[in-house]
């Protein structure tokens, strides 16, 4: 393991943690707005339910879900890029095959 570069594991770990936090944030926001919309919550500044009217809460939940799907995928991409930069081509090839499988799976499902 090189002493000049952070370990691959640490880089991938940061990607996973950041992505999952962002996804959970939007899921939480979307669900909270859904509850507020259902309750018809009002504030002194006005009807906050207007801000959550329509498809905004659902859109936020779907955005969170999309980020959740993209997070492990991004981790795979980052791992592959770092493997290539470190000259670990066998593992980079494995990662490349994995990317192909996930993309084919997405296209088949969609």
């Amino acid at each position: 393991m090189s002493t000049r570069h952070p370990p691959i594991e640490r880089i991938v770990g940061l990607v996973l943690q950041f992505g999952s936090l962002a996804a959970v944030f939007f899921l939480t926001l979307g669900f909270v707005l859904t509850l507020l919309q259902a309750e018809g919550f009002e504030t002194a500044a006005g009807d906050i339910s207007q801000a959550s009217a329509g498809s905004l809460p659902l859109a936020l939940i779907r955005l969170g879900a999309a980020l959740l799907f993209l997070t492990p995928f991004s981790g795979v991409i980052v791992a592959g890029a770092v493997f290539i930069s470190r000259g670990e081509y066998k593992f980079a090839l494995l990662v490349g095959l994995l990317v192909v499988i996930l993309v084919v799976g997405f296209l088949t499902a969609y």
Partner: protein
Amino acid sequence: MLAGAFGAVLGLGGGVLLVPLLTLVFGLPINEAIGTSLVAIIATSTGAAGNYLRTGAAHLRLGVTLVLATAIGGACGGYFAVYFSHELLSFLFGLVLLYASANMLFRRRGGTETSVSGESIVPAAGEAVSSPRWAGAVGGSLFAGGISGLLGVGGGIVQVPIIYLILKAPLKVATATSAYMIGITALSGSLFYYFRGEVDPLYMAPTTVGVFLGATLGSWSAPRIRADLIRLVFIAVLLYSSLQMFLRSLEKALFR
């Protein structure tokens, strides 16, 4: 939250608790419970795996080697799940849990070291994958992925014994590496349920958030828990979940 914490500690995705919870308590059809569970499992995995990777508990190269098979299996499971009846899915779920618990209970223990040294459990350059242990590990990973996509578990109930018993890795490395693999495996299967409309956002969102919070707490506490305790809890949860799903499938068959 409890499902997430438990899943993070044991290297599972929490699906062994989530699917029975969503079907038995909230009354979701099992196909929707499976889809919701798979999406939530991604959160469990990423919440825990990020921490495990940063602390060096998970073996990334081992995970990348095996996750190819689990991803293929997961995609196949998710794609073909629509052809299985709900009763059959419940019964299969119970069978898998029963097998996994028996496997952990009666097999002898694997490695005893607390860390992975270098590339000792990853094939050296040029080593044939057809060696018996690796063939078993890859085949088992393919099966684990199929189970994941079909039944909404993360695959860890099969994957952890594979890494622990077949590849002789320490249990904590097995659970941590499995936690990393689970996210990718669940992703490959969940895509099919999501785009088939079998994931209700209003169930998925709170379930996923709760699981994520639980997983974060679980990954923090895992290094502080003894491996023996992890194993015993793992077995107990599997047996309990298995019984519940058998009863569920029989109940549907008897009262048709």
